[in-house]
Structures are given as C-alpha cells and as structure tokens.
C-alpha cells in the first residue's frame, strides 16, 4: 500500500505526555505527519486546549521524522505572526513543518480578536490572501542571504532579503519576515478542498463518507482538486477500516485518520519507504525555487 498517513490529534487537554505518546507511536508506525486541531474557543466540554503551534513546537524536539502540522486560523490571526511561527517551527524541526489552514469564522471566534465576521467570498479572499502573504514571506530571505563577508563587514546581502509589499483585500504587509527562509523553502500547506483555495494548497483534504455514494463523490472531488493544482490529495477519514483503505490506495495520495485507528493502519503497512529527513522529502514534494531569486 502506498498511501501516506496523517494522524489528526485534538482533545488532548493539558496532558502533554499523552499527546507525545500518540505522536511518537504514529512516528514509529511510519506516519508522514500529524495534524493538530485548534480553535481560539474552548472545547465544548470545558477542558483545556493548548495552542496548536505551541504543541507542534514542543513535539519538534520529541520527534525526529514525523511532519508537524498545527492548525492556524487565517481569519483570526495576524498574517505576519502566522508566517513567522510556521517558519520557526520549520527551523526548530529541521524541515518538518506544515500548516493546516483553518477558517474559523464564527462570531465568537472573531470577537476574540475584535475583527469583523467574514463569510462567503470575503472569507475565501481573506484565506487566499493569508496563504499568499505567508508564501511570499517564507521566500523573503533567499537561501544564501547570510554571507558573513569579513572583508566588507557585511553580515548579509541586502539584495537577497526582500520586502514583499503585499496588498490584500483587508491588509497590507511590508516584510521581509524576521526569520530566514525555512529549511523546506516553503512550509507544506494543507487545507480542505471546500475552502475555495485549492490551487494554493500542497495537500488538499477531502472528507468522505464510508458509503458507495461517498466514495464516488470522493473520487470526483479528488479529480477536481488535482485539476485545480493541489500537489497531493488526502482523504480525511473520521473512521477507517481495511477494505476502505485498500479501496483508496491509488485513488488518493494519503489518508488522515484518528488516534483510534493507528493499530489498523499499522497492520496494513509493512513495506513503507523510510521517511525524511524533511516532510517534503517524505511526501515526494520538491523544495520550491524562491519566487524572489533573480535568475542566474
């Protein structure tokens, strides 16, 4: 079976040890990445929810091969902080960072940051703008910007560190990022195919129901996501079984499952290729060229 595996974790409360145990188990089983759910609002049961970026950063030094994909909500964040946090996660994990694009847009979520509620095309535009500015900021330092040239006393080459001067519908960002280019060049961007930004995604997540009709729809939406430019398509499975996974092999590039299904997929995956060292390497995604680099 050639499917990539992603594990979704949420609801782990304040128990960092339990979270670490799940993720190291997934790493040992050959999972490509873990996605970490989040919301600025408390869990319905009133328990604790540690911010996903902080959880991912902590996990970066407790793991060595698995990709780490916190959910950050484009609609209720400062885009500059978001890009810096994800670039820093990529540095801390030596190239294993990814970002699950969140689109929390409820009135309660917007009120936590005092920003207006966005819906429909306004929300889609906002998400697209945040992804675009993050991608520009990750490229704002070229790989060889730091030159440490003692002869001229120059630490960096200012021609290789760029303002992005981004103008979106609702915000502008000058740049450059305060953090040098991430080890992967671009952090891997993951999002649902329903966000309306599929062309900007490295991995499109397509949710599915375990029924004949559900599988037919999945096949159709997978084809659409590929046509829109998503490099990889993962099926998002609330629950998995062996026949479903066999059916999906060859249809999608990977599946995202929940903690309860780790034993099932572990039994099915005997011949995985070794992962890493970066998440892009594991997924077979090339390290992108820098959009600001002058040719030649």
């Amino acid at each position, binding site marked *: 079976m050639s499917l990539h595996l992603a594990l979704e974790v949420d609801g782990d409360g*304040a128990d*960092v040890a339990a979270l670490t145990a799940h993720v190291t188990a997934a790493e040992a089983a050959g999972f490509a990445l873990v996605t970490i759910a989040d919301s*600025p*609002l*408390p*869990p319905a049961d009133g328990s*604790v*929810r*540690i*911010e996903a*970026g*902080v*959880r991912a*950063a*902590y*996990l*970066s*030094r*407790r793991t060595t091969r698995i990709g780490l994909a916190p959910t950050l909500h484009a609609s*209720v*964040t*400062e*885009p*500059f*902080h978001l890009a*810096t*946090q994800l*670039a*820093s*996660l990529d*540095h*801390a*994990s030596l190239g294993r960072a990814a970002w699950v694009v969140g689109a929390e847009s409820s009135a*309660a979520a917007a*009120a*936590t*940051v*005092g*920003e207006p509620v966005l819906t429909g095309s306004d929300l889609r535009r906002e998400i697209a703008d945040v992804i675009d500015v993050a991608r520009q900021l990750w490229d704002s*330092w070229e790989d060889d910007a*730091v030159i*440490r040239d*003692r002869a*001229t*006393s*120059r*630490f*960096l*080459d*200012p021609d290789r*560190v760029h303002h992005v001067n981004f103008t979106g519908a609702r*915000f*502008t*960002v*000058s740049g*450059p*990022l*305060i*953090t*040098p280019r991430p080890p992967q060049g671009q952090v891997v961007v993951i999002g649902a195919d329903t966000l309306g930004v599929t062309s900007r995604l490295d991995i499109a997540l397509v949710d599915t129901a375990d029924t004949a009709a559900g599988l037919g729809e999945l096949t159709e939406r997978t084809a659409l996501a590929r046509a829109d430019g998503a490099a990889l398509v993962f099926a998002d499975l609330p629950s998995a079984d062996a026949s479903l996974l066999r059916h999906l092999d060859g249809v999608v590039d990977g599946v995202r499952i929940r903690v309860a299904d780790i034993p099932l997929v572990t039994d099915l995956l005997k011949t995985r290729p070794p992962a890493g060292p970066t998440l892009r390497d594991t997924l077979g995604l090339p390290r992108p060229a820098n959009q600001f680099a002058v040719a030649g």
Partner: protein
Amino acid sequence: MSRQLHLGVFFTGVGPQLIWTDPAFAAHTHIDTFVRTAQTLERGLFDAFFLGEGLRVRENRGRIHELDVAGRPDAITQLAALAAVTEKIGLVATQNTTYNYPADLARRLASLDVVSGGRAGWNIVTTDNAWTGENFRHGGWLPHERRYERAEAFVATARELWAGQSVDRHTDLIDVTATPTVTGRPVLFQAGDSPGGRELAAKHADVVFSANTDFDKAVAYAADLRERLAKHGRSADSLRILPGAQVIIGDTPAEAAEKAEWLKREQVNGPRAIAFLEQYWGKDLSGYDPDGPLPDVEPAEGELDPSRGTIAIEHRTGKRERIAEWRSWGLSIRELVLRVTPRHNAFIGTPGQIADEWTRYLEAGAVDGFNVVPQQLPGTIDDLVDKLVPALQERGVYRTAYSGSTLREHLDLR
C-alpha cells in the same frame, strides 16, 4: 540564607552587540545553537533564558541593514521547542502589547507555561513604531502617549484569562470578548524605564529588566520602584530587579580590559559608525573616513530615519540641533558613535572581580540579579557558566542546585 542573585541571559539573537566576525560564532538561527545555549545555562542553574523581539528587519535608508546579525525565530515557538529539551530553566518571551491580539497572545503564553511545567515568562514591551506596524493588519495605529494605557488593558485581559475568567472589554484601545482555553501563571517581566513603564511594573510585574546598572542609579531606581509598589499595595519583596548587563570576563584584569577594547572596536566598526550617521544625515556617507571628523555636508531635509527600530520619542525630532551639538564636541565619527550609542553597562574583569562587584550590588539592595546580554556565541555563555557561576557560588550568593521547578519558584516569588 543570605540574599541570592538571580541570573538570566537575554538572547537578543540580532543586533550590533553580537560579534559575528568571530570564527567561533555559532549558527545564530540554528535550533542546535538555542538548545546548546539553554542547556548550558541550565547546567549553570540560571533562572531564565530570554528571547528578544523585533518585528521588522532593520534598514538603513530603505535598504535592509547589512552589517549586523539579523534573522530570528518567533520567541514562543522557539521556547516551546526548548521546553522539550530542558527541565528547570525559565523560558521568557519578549512580546509587545501593540501588534498582538490580547486573547491570542495570552493563550500562547499560557500554552508555553503548560508545556514547560510552569516555566514561562512574558517580558512585556510596548511600542508605537509605525514602521514596524507596516507588517500588521492595523499599521501604526497607537498614539505614543497612549501605549501604556493599551498595555495596561492588555495585561489585565491576559491575567483574567489566565485566572480562568472570561473577558469582555471594549474601549477605543482594546476590543476583546474571550473565554479562557488555557490557564496558567506566566511570570511578568517589564523593561520600560519611563514613568509609564515604572507604573506598569509596579502594578503588574514580577520582575523588572531595567537599564540601570550604574551603582548609584541602580540604588535610586530600586528605591523609586519600592515606593511605587507600596502605592499599589504590594510588598517590597514582591518584585525582582534584574538589570541588563554585558559581562566581559578575562583570566586577568589586563586580559579582560583587552577583550573589552576589542569588543568595542568590533561592535562599533567603521562601516557601522558610518551607517549610524547615515540615519541622521539621510545621505550616503560611505566616502567618509570613520576615524576622521564628522561629515562636512549638511543633512538631508526631513527627520530621522525610523528604521533602526524603536527610537525613544525625544530622539525622533530635532536632528539638526543634535548634529550641531555633535559637531561642537570635536570627536571623530567613530568616537562620536561610541559615545552616543546606548549600551548595556559592562562588568569587566576576572570572575572574582565581577563576583565581588555583583555581591556589593546585591547587598546594597540595588538589584536582585542580572540579565546578561551576550556578545559572543557561545563564548559569553560558556564564560558565565564555567567561570562566573563558580566564583559567585564561592561567595555564597548563588544557588548550588535548583530548589524548585517553576520559574516563579526560582525567583522566590509567590
């Protein structure tokens, strides 16, 4: 037990005080450098490891400033990674109250507190720098004179959320309705030295990270803060004073003095001295000799280039008068820059000399410790832990083991 010193390292990670020309200079954005630094400081029983903040890469006349170490990680992300590879040392993030959302930042800080087992700290800074604001949704929105008003409401919001209370606060400076998702009690550090900063410290802070290392100033500062604490109904021992300081250690006094001289010449080298003046002149001065007199050309119209980062408001205007005054001093370009650049006071000497000096500060009640700003990586860190710490321990003014496991416990705060 006699009074004990509390030590931190303020890892700015960028700026002219860091000597990158040193062949031993560590890869300054590599995670391994941060891990090694934090673990070495933990071996040295330090209270805290601090990360600085700067949300825009510095520039000179519209171009990225090329001479200084630049590039740094997001502080909370980096400290959360370090929480996984350290067990005791406090992890303090400098974060400003202008270009953050209160509930979001409070949540990230509390999250760091949880994953580190109670070792998080927040060094609260304010800014109104509109040039930095160009990286954020609302630009330079905050009037200078209201920055502490915003900070006050911001910190109150964070404290309420950390205590598990919902927040509903709406004024022209803050707009937040939030329910807590993570509770915690990060230690609050405050660095501002203006009256507004001192008031914020006296009301909210657990630790002040002051700039007052000169002995007499440190004594006066401590007295002023204690007076303000009393006014807010707080006891004199509810606040720790940890001024920022440079430490330059040699095996002999002569070696330390020689190293200090070398560091100063490196930190204010010729190109840096010229670049400093260019911000005032607004012109290309690269043709001038840094060891010669000040440029004979007149400065450009307009005020000072804001792109060095946050500049105290009294230095933002009146550049022509300032330049006229500088000319009257008759110094070379480099001598002038050495004189006018703000610097953390340096303690220079053998480990024993510095330990004696710090003991004097401690016993006079002028400080509770120091926050050391490194010039060399890893050199400064290794000198502190391997040379200065044993000298302090010999004098009985520094712990020989951690007695607690949280930052609050290290600092002997309730």
